[in-house]
C-alpha cells in the first residue's frame, strides 16, 4: 500500500551525498591551489631571483660608500705622518716604521669593521626579503582560509622591516699620532716601543724626536 506512494527521502540523501562530493572536490581544488601557490612563492623568492648577486649589489653599494671615506682618511693620516716624520728628520727610521705599522693596523681594523657592518646590513636585507616571503605565504593561506585573513592583515605592517644601514659620515677613524712633540702626553700606547726604536736607530736622547700615538 505505501511502497509506491510513501514519502521518500532518497532525494535528500542524494542531495547530501552530492554536497559531500562537492566538499571533497572543493577541498581537493583548495589543496591544489595551496601547493601551486607555495611553489610560485618559492620560485619568486628563490635563489634564481633573490640570490647572492642581489644581496652582493647592496653590500657593495654600502662598501662603495664607506670604504672611500676610510681610504681618504687613511691617505690624509699617512700624509700627515709623513710630513711630521720628515719635519722631525725621522722619515727613514724605526719610528717611521712604527707609525706606518700603527696606521696600517688601524686601517685594517677599521676596514674589517666596515665590511662586517656591510655584511650585517646585508643579512638584514635577507631577513627583510624573507619576511616578505613569509607574508606572501601568510596571504596565500589567508586567501584559502578566510578565518586567518584578519590576523594576517593585522601583522603585515610589522614585518618586512629593513634595519637602516649606517649611512652617516664615518667620523675620525684614525687616532692622531703626534710626532716630534716632546711635551705630548706620555704613556700612550706604543710610545715606549717607539722611543726604544728611535734611540736605537738615531742614537738620540728622548726629547725632540719623541713619538707618541
Amino acid at each position, binding site marked *: 500500500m505505501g511502497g509506491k506512494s510513501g514519502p521518500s527521502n532518497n*532525494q535528500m540523501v542524494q542531495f547530501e551525498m552530492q554536497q559531500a562530493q562537492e566538499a571533497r572536490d572543493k577541498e581537493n581544488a583548495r589543496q591544489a591551489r595551496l601547493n601551486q601557490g607555495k611553489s610560485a612563492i618559492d620560485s619568486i623568492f628563490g635563489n634564481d*631571483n633573490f640570490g647572492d648577486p642581489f644581496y652582493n649589489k647592496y653590500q657593495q653599494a*654600502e662598501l662603495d660608500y664607506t670604504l672611500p671615506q676610510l681610504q681618504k682618511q687613511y691617505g690624509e693620516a699617512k700624509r700627515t705622518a709623513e710630513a711630521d716624520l720628515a719635519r722631525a728628520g725621522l722619515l727613514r727610521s724605526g719610528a717611521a716604521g712604527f707609525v706606518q705599522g700603527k696606521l696600517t693596523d688601524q686601517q685594517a681594523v677599521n676596514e674589517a669593521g666596515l665590511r662586517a657592518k656591510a655584511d650585517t646590513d646585508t643579512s638584514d*636585507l635577507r631577513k627583510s626579503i624573507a619576511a616578505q616571503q613569509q607574508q606572501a605565504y601568510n596571504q596565500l593561506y589567508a586567501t584559502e582560509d578566510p578565518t586567518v585573513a584578519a590576523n594576517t592583515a593585522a601583522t603585515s605592517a610589522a614585518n618586512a622591516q629593513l634595519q637602516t644601514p649606517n649611512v652617516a659620515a664615518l667620523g675620525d677613524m684614525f687616532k692622531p699620532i703626534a710626532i716630534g712633540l716632546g711635551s705630548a702626553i706620555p704613556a700612550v700606547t706604543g710610545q715606549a716601543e717607539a722611543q726604544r726604536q728611535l734611540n736605537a736607530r738615531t742614537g738620540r736622547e728622548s726629547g725632540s724626536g719623541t713619538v707618541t700615538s
Partner: protein
Amino acid sequence: MCDPISIIGLGFSIGMSLYNMQQQQDMASKQQSANDQWVAYQRRQSQNYLQRDEDLRRNAEAGREGALEELGAKKQTAAQESESERLKTSLTPEEVAAQAEGDPNAIAGAMFSGQQHGSEEMKTAIQGHIQQAAIEARKRIAALADVQSYGGSQYGLTNRANTILNTAGQDIRLAGNERSGILSAYNVAKAVEPIKITQYGGGAAGGLAQAGAGVAGQGLGNALAASI
C-alpha cells in the same frame, strides 16, 4: 445468515480503512512535496553560497597574486634602481654635480680667493683637483643612494614591499571577513529542516474502523453460533 448490524459494521470498518489509507497517501504526498521543496531550497542556498564564496576568494586571490607579481625580483630590482636614480639627483648638491661635469663657473666658485689670479698651470691643477673631488663625492653619493634605495628612503624597497603587502592584505582581509559572514548565513540556512507532515485524525479513523470490525465480528460470531 448475517445480521444487518454485522454487515453495517463490516462496511463501516472497510470504509474507515479506505479513508485512513487515503489520508496516509495524502500525507505521504505532502511530505514528499515538503522534502522536494527542502532539497530545492538547500540546493539553491548551496549554489548561491558556493558562487559567492568563489567570487570573494577570487577577489582575495587577485589581490594576493597582484602583490606577488610586484614583489618579484625583476620588479623589485627595477623599483630599487629607479629609487636609486631619484635619490642620486635628490642627494647630490647642484654645485657638486656641476663641478663634476666640469662647469667652469662652479669650479671657479670653489677656488680660494686670490687663486684666480695665479698662473694658468696652477689654476688648471687646482681646478682639476676640485673636479676630481666632485666626481669622487658624486660617486660616493651614488653609492649612498643605492644603499638607501633598498631600505628606508621614501620609495625604497622596504616601504614599497610593505605598501604592496598591506594593500593585498586588506583585500584579502575584506574578502575573508565577507566569506566568514556568508558562511555563517549559509550554516543557518543548512540548519533549516524539511516540513514534517502529520496525519490529522488518522488515529481516530483507525479506531472507528477497529470498532466497526469489532461489531461486525461479534455479529458474525453470533450468527455462526446460532447456525451450529
